[in-house]
């Protein structure tokens, strides 16, 4: 069965201070129709860039190599009408900061109906009816009134729901959610997440869910990929990520998570997260890895299947016991 989205060997360079710097290195992922894939990483890991590359939203001057296929079509070579159709019915993006991503001088109603009026050529009335229905779906009941308001009159949580509603309006096959709840406070986060998760499943949409929160990815996604410094270092079923990490970085993330029951000191990963262009030769995580050996700094490890998932650790077999024993370090 061919996947809905197939990313193969994606490499992206961005112009930074006049020079092209690598930000994504050999990213390969697959998402089947209706499936949700989480991409987890820290800042600089390239997770946002991956979503933007898929959505064809990379900044001007970016150099993209590799393959992205959506429903068989070559995404990177789309243009004109085909590109518009891809953006309006294929994938829909949900951004992190709704306040920055919605035009502040146009009404909420304008934002919601713009896509419908432009692509489906619906009349304003018809589009408004659909939009009000969508607002109800995301839990906003006084939709008709909200449509006449401006973005600054709504709270962050409400605005993000509006963003989700707008994404659904195009009835896309796949959602690209780039840290949709990071900018919200914790209570609102769970509300919005619940809505997003429910609607996605109800409508059978696929999703690529970007986040820095391993647990959150685990809760809403079937599979999760962990990224570090522009590379995918592990891909696994979400459920197994905690109990059975396949890569030292994932183990580090899991161990660093505070647990309410635990009384021992948090184990942090030493050093700072790096971007793809900052890592040296060999494994990107080598500099911060507690299992580092000489072989780790001499060759770039390939992403290979192991133990039911994929891992980029050269020493995975050797340190398998230590990776699995992470439970012993916690309370």
């Amino acid at each position: 069965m061919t996947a809905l989205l197939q990313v193969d060997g994606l490499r992206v360079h961005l112009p930074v201070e006049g020079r092209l710097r690598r930000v994504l290195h050999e990213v390969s992922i697959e998402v089947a129709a209706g499936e949700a894939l989480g991409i987890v990483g820290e800042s600089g890991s390239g997770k946002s860039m991956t979503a933007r590359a898929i959505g064809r939203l990379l900044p001007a001057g970016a150099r993209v190599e590799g393959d992205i296929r959506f429903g068989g079509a070559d995404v990177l070579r789309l243009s004109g009408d085909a590109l518009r159709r891809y953006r309006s019915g294929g994938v829909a993006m949900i951004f992190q900061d709704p306040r920055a991503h919605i035009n502040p001088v146009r009404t909420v109603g304008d934002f919601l109906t713009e896509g419908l009026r432009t692509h489906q050529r619906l009349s304003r009335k018809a589009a408004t009816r659909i939009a009000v229905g969508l607002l109800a779906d995301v839990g906003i009941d006084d939709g008709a009134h909200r449509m006449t308001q401006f973005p600054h009159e709504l709270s962050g949580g409400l605005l993000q729901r509006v963003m989700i509603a707008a994404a659904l309006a195009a009835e896309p096959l796949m959602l690209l959610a780039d840290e949709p709840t990071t900018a919200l406070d914790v209570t609102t986060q769970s509300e919005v997440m619940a809505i997003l998760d429910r609607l996605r499943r109800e409508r059978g949409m696929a999703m690529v869910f970007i986040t820095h929160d391993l647990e959150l990815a685990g809760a809403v996604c079937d599979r999760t990929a962990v990224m570090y410094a522009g590379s995918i270092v592990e891909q696994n079923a979400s459920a197994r990520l905690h109990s059975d990490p396949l890569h030292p970085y994932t183990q580090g993330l899991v161990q660093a998570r505070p647990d309410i029951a635990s009384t021992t000191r948090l184990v942090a990963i030493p050093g700072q997260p790096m971007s793809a262009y900052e890592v040296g030769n060999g494994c990107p995580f080598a500099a911060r890895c507690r299992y580092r050996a000489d072989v780790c700094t001499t060759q770039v490890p390939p992403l290979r299947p192991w133990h039911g998932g994929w891992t980029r650790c050269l020493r995975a077999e050797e340190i398998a016991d230590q990776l699995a024993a992470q439970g012993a370090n916690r309370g």
Partner: protein
Amino acid sequence: MNALRFVVGRLVGLVVTLLIVSFLVYGALFLAPGSPIAYLTRGRTTSAEDVAAIQAQYHLDKPFLQQYWLWLEGALHGDLGRSIIYRQDVTTLLGERAVNTCYLVVAAAFVILVVGLPLGVLAGLRPGWLDRGILLGATGAMAVPAFVAAVALVSVFAVQLKWFPVFGQGQGPGARIYHLVLPAVALALSFGAYVARLTRAAVRAELTSEHVQTAESRGIPRAALIRRHVLRNASIPIVTVSGLTVGGLIAGAVVVEQAFQLNGLGSYLIAAVGQKDFPIVQAITLIFVSAFVVINTAVDLTYVRLDPRLRLGANR
């Protein structure tokens, strides 16, 4: 409704500012060295009747505030006093000249809107050599003051190429427009360049903004995107900047009229200063400053109309 309150508030502010301005313009007379009478009559031989007439006109025997009030009342009724030199009503003397100045300023504004604004938009939308060229040209043009531009234009287009007349304003609508071309361009040059640069910056900022990315990600066609999201949003800072250029246009008009010997308020102001005809100086200053304040208020109100975030006093 908050929008109404804002408008009323602004209009009240306008009236208050105009009152303050008129007070200052009137009171300036008393800053001059010596007594007001000495100042008003200095350098001229004046008979006792003239002195008495001036005394009466300025109500100099009455307390200061009452003087101001009487003068203001007269001004509102169209009576701005009498010129000391020409012994005619100021209003009569200014009437036609005011119209001429209006033509000049409107013509310059037209040039700015029709040339400066589109160039700025073009430069903002298409980065590349065109953009760099426009930026360079605009930066250079900004450094050319109106009077230097006037002289240069006269030298090249009027004297050497003989395409345009040098001085005066001509009779009849066709000739008047013809005579206004060089003055309008001279006046519009540095401000048009400023507007072009600012428009370019505003358009560029909007083009790379996140909400435009959202529209892009939804597959909105580029033309609609530029119209509904980029230009619409960029119009806010552009309108704000336009308000700022009004002051400069007024000052520039004064000098340009002098350079081209146009018979307007500006050139008359300069003549009156030289001749120490204070009622004229007072009146023209009052008109100019009032125009400045009124136009700025109008710009403020437009700005609020464009940016809904301001209407309800929300945090931005």
